[in-house]
């Protein structure tokens, strides 16, 4: 019996080692860039949740800073209700926003070559900064600012990476050959990036009195991007806890049944 327990413990240890090896081998595959530091996000862990106040600040940073070049094309204005904006606040957010209108009574979508516009509604997607990739490149010296909706899922070490990148701008070391119009950032692949440092202290003015340091704004906007990438995260973890708890009890009961059934044999 003790040998059996020992054997199973060894098996568990082996599995654990294997999974941690897989985990490190995945995180190490990042390539020629500095590894981002681990941050604590409210969304981490079994009880991960959104800090709605922080997400609202993050939206403000995105809206006032990032959105001039980067889209979040998978998000609708209506989704902002999920991070704590009231419907009046959402109406205020879209008050000055216009989107291309559908065909009018004559079936026209353009007037003299210009698209016919209408005021945005909550069911519209958050407007894109540029009509297409070409326009985007043309306005950004040939570089394409990527869509941010899924950014924290689309990079290794997602949220930590985004935060490290936003706060990681430095002067290039003297032996580093920086290309024209590029900026030194050790966290970006190849250590140079077309985007200039987007955040500066007091770049936005927070309504809730939080001091808008680069660190703070970066944390907030990254938290916002965790939400745009995984809006289901909170519900997922909450439901997950219940399911795990149920399965633990259920498996224990099934084990008791198994023991009892097999007891007849021994």
């Amino acid at each position, binding site marked *: 019996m003790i040998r059996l327990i020992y054997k199973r413990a060894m098996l568990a240890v082996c599995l654990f080692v294997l999974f941690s090896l897989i985990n490190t081998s995945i995180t190490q595959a990042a390539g020629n860039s500095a590894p981002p530091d681990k941050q604590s996000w409210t969304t981490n862990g079994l009880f991960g949740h959104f800090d709605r106040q922080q997400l609202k600040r993050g939206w403000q940073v995105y809206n006032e800073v990032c959105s001039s070049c980067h889209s979040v094309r998978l998000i609708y204005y209506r989704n902002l209700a999920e991070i704590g904006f009231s419907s009046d606040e959402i109406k205020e957010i879209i008050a000055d926003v216009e989107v291309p209108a559908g065909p009018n009574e004559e079936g026209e979508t353009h007037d003299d070559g210009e698209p016919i516009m209408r005021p945005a509604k909550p069911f519209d997607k958050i407007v894109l900064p540029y009509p297409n990739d070409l326009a985007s490149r043309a306005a950004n010296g040939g570089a394409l600012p990527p869509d941010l909706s899924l950014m924290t899922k689309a990079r290794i070490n997602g949220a930590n990476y985004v935060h490290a990148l936003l706060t990681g701008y430095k002067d290039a070391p003297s032996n580093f050959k920086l290309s024209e119009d590029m900026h030194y950032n050790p966290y970006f692949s190849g250590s140079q990036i077309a985007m200039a440092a987007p955040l500066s202290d007091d770049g936005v003015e927070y309504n809730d009195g939080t001091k808008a340091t680069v660190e703070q704004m970066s944390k907030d906007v990254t938290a916002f991007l965790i939400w745009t990438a995984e809006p289901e995260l909170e519900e*997922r973890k909450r439901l997950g806890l219940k399911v795990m708890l149920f399965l633990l009890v259920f498996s224990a009961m099934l084990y008791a049944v198994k023991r009892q059934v*097999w007891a007849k044999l021994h």
Partner: protein
Amino acid sequence: MSKPTWKNPIVKWVDHRLPVFTFIDHSLVTYPTPRNLNYFWNFGSLAGIVLVIMIASGIVLAMNYTANTSMAFDSVERIMRDVNYGWLIRYIHMNGASMFFIVVYIHIFRGMYYGSYKEPRELLWIIGIFIFLAMMATAFLGYVLPWGQMSFWGATVITNLFSVIPFFGETIVQWLWSGFSVDNPTLNKFFSLHYLLPFIIFGLVFLHLWALHTHKSNNPLGIDIKGDKDEIPFHPYYTAKDAFGVGIFLLFFLGFVFFAPNFFGEPDNYIEANPLVTPPHIVPEWYFLPYYAILRAVPDNFIDVWGFLPVIIPAKTAGVIAMFSSILLLILLPWLDTSKVRSANFRPTYFWLFWLFVIDTIVLGFVGAKPAEGTWLLVGRLATLYYFVHLVILMPLVGRFEKTKPLPESISAAVVGKDAKESS
């Protein structure tokens, strides 16, 4: 096997005309099973359950998925965001693929350890290999559907493997693509085949079980059932044991679904496919990594290194042959293994070779995740070499020269004896 008598008049009426109840009784209730199966025997039924979970979740996903290059990526994101519990179903399907391979790899290794492929279960084993191949095809096709960067580039790399087929290679690749590159017609074709293949797997599983029930399960001792004392009815013994296994498995599976749903995935697949941008490292899903390592292990200057080979094979062709033969060789395993003794518990030399082989495939998996250069390439080549040496050279030799331990007289003698010892 006695025919069950049914009391319920409706059951009786139906069973007289179509003996479904008798069939169920024979294959799930009174079905005689060795009394000494350990928990490694749970993985067969687990694989069946994962197959059902995959088909069920897949059918629901297909109701909301759009197989068009301009809409596929967004339709998956719509499932994740706007379909009720779409995120749950999609994460179940996505992680279910990994679970399927974990379960099936354990199932295959269990068969190798306990010699479950040996006479008279050769066909059972071979059908299993075909199920495995169909699973690999299904998983590959499914991975293309979300139309992320890895979907597109994985599809490009894998379909290009077929270009090494002599004379018809190019034609076959264009036929797979339904065009001249991986594009919209390819995506449509892959969606159709991804929906078809699981039902073929289902059919193969039926044959697998038919073959299994003909000669019954092998067991940890690897000796045949010799009498009533050696066997117990499937129900309630193994239904109870399998149900407990399902509980533990679901804890493991749903743990990933709810708390680390992207653990097994590649971040690059959350970037929409772009034929103009090649990702820095094209890596297949983890369950293909050992084969990917074998594919890339063959040296470029194949002819220089293996100069004595009379045929001239380009490195890529040799790599593809090595990769496919690494799986197809398993079909011959019942004959490559010359030992009469099934269970590795009674084969002291094979015991160690088996575990070396397991470690070897894990090493290959790690190598497959790394760029093919430097030390990793060397390790990959040695591990590939050992893979084939194990199957083609060591398996036949060990069976001939190994001195096996004496087998117990019968299952019941061994089990009851052990119980008596433990309780004393």
